[in-house]
């Protein structure tokens, strides 16, 4: 068989590289899975294969780490912030992609620029602002759901808007024009024609907005109280507590890590076709 002319690597190099990549990716993950079913006292004893499979790590961790509460808090906070972000983003992106107006380009640039604002730069002022708002009016922000929700909107909104702008630009404008000729108003055209067509784009925006909060540790560790901790902070606190302990519960820690990572990995695998373009859009890896 003739080789594909686009193949730039000689076969031995390519096969060697592929084996290298597969091992480098799967071995650490396999190690994580192995540790998660190793009894805690055996980690650190030197053996690699545990004496028995401690599947009860996955049962015990729900009470030692308070995973359930973290999971629920993460779902509420990230769910609200991503839904709001996408709702606003569709409207803004529609205007940005369909109308030419003064300030359109500065606005588009600012969406990109916002992706590269160092998150840590916003942390302190936001904290100072939130705490003085709390002092001035009886609206608690720190230690509640609304604080993190507002914060994640900061990053999710420009990200979602940018993703929607690039998606809506690919939808032919003729479809709405046809609707407008038939007597539909702009809002009707948006709701009945554009939104149904833009659904794959909205899924992408929703997933990435959701992950802004899910992956965040920086803001959540400052703005949440023990009752409103997200999954990430719950896990970080637990792991910090293992440092000084006499018997670190590493097995359960790895079990909890698997549970935190699995929904995200599955989400990517399911929507991979749509998500790949957004992966480089920024802010994904906090």
């Amino acid at each position, binding site marked *: 068989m003739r080789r594909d002319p686009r193949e730039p690597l000689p076969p031995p190099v390519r096969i060697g590289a592929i084996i290298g990549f597969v091992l480098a990716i799967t071995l650490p993950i396999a190690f994580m899975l192995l540790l998660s079913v190793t009894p805690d006292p055996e980690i650190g004893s030197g053996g690699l294969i545990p004496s028995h499979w401690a599947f009860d790590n996955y049962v015990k961790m729900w009470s030692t780490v308070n995973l359930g509460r973290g999971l629920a808090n993460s779902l509420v906070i990230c769910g609200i912030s991503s839904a709001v972000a996408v709702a606003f983003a569709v409207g803004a992106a529609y205007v940005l992609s369909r109308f030419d107006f003064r300030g359109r380009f500065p606005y588009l640039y600012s969406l990109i620029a916002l992706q590269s604002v160092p998150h840590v730069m916003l942390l302190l002022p936001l904290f100072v602002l939130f705490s003085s708002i709390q002092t001035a009016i009886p609206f608690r922000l720190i230690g509640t759901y609304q604080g993190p929700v507002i914060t994640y909107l900061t990053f999710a909104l420009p990200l979602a808007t940018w993703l929607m702008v690039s998606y809506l630009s690919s939808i032919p404008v003729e479809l709405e024009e046809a609707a407008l000729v038939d007597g539909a108003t702009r809002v009707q055209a948006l709701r009945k024609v554009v939104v149904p067509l833009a659904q794959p784009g909205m899924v992408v925006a929703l997933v990435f907005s959701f992950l802004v909060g899910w992956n965040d540790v920086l803001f959540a560790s400052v703005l949440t109280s023990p009752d409103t901790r997200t999954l990430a902070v719950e896990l970080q606190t637990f792991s910090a507590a293992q440092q000084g302990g006499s018997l670190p519960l590493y097995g359960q820690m790895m079990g909890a890590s698997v549970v935190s*990572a699995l929904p995200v990995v599955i989400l990517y695998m399911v929507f991979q076709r749509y998500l790949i373009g957004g992966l480089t859009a920024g802010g994904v890896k906090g």
Partner: protein
Amino acid sequence: MWPNIVVVLLIVALPFLIAVYTSFLSVDQYTLRQWVGAPWVGFENYVEALAGSNVLSVSALGSLGISVAFSVLTTLIITPIGILAALTVNTSFRGRALLRSLYLVPYVIPTFVTALLWRMMFLPNTGLLNRALSAIGLADVNTYWLVGAKSFWAMTITEVWAVWAFIYIMVLAGLQSIPIEQYEVAELDGANSWQKLTRVVLPQLRGLIYLALLLSTLFHFNNFTLPFVMFGTPPPAAVTVLPLNIYLTSFNLFDFSLGSAMSVITLIIMLVPGFFYLRMLRLGEVTSR
């Protein structure tokens, strides 16, 4: 539209002004509630940020060095890895779709999980990496990667494992857009694999790779979660990157003003690559209709 503009202004411009203002005051946990009336100290915080060292024994300048070294080093290592990975799955073969999915897995695992996973990998006596290195005689199985100067390398290796797919995704997209005819012509002219790679493929990807390098440096400079979760508090001095230093100064030492001064310094430094990034973007291509 308008809600968006208002939110952007409120959420970015206002905090920035607060950061600048706070950095000239002396705000701690006692004066935080009436921070507007805190004593004015001028540039004292900036002097302290650049010259003095805090309890962590790392000044802002020292942290800046660590951050720059970390982000540049990571970017330099992941670039050839990402390009190589993209080249291995450019042409179709059985199992390519599966391999492409697998390549993305480390990148999509949340950073806080990656940090915990690699903390276990580097654990003395137990960690898989230590076992592997001692098996081939490169290091002792009891090497302490998570404390002291070696922790910088532990952090960098972990970051490389987690983020190389960023370059991979961008390069793969670029590779797919090169028409097959160009390869065929090169082949007719007698080019071998290496010549095709260096004369046909890489020159066309140059702009894309520059953009990827810049973005990657920008993102890794802001890295906070990895060292924070991986090394706990207080972290070894060698991994105290600038964002981590700001966080600890503000919320462990409660010197909010010093933290603000460091934040402003960070933003000013970030303006340089940020400016080049905006220059390189050709927005017209994305949004023109």
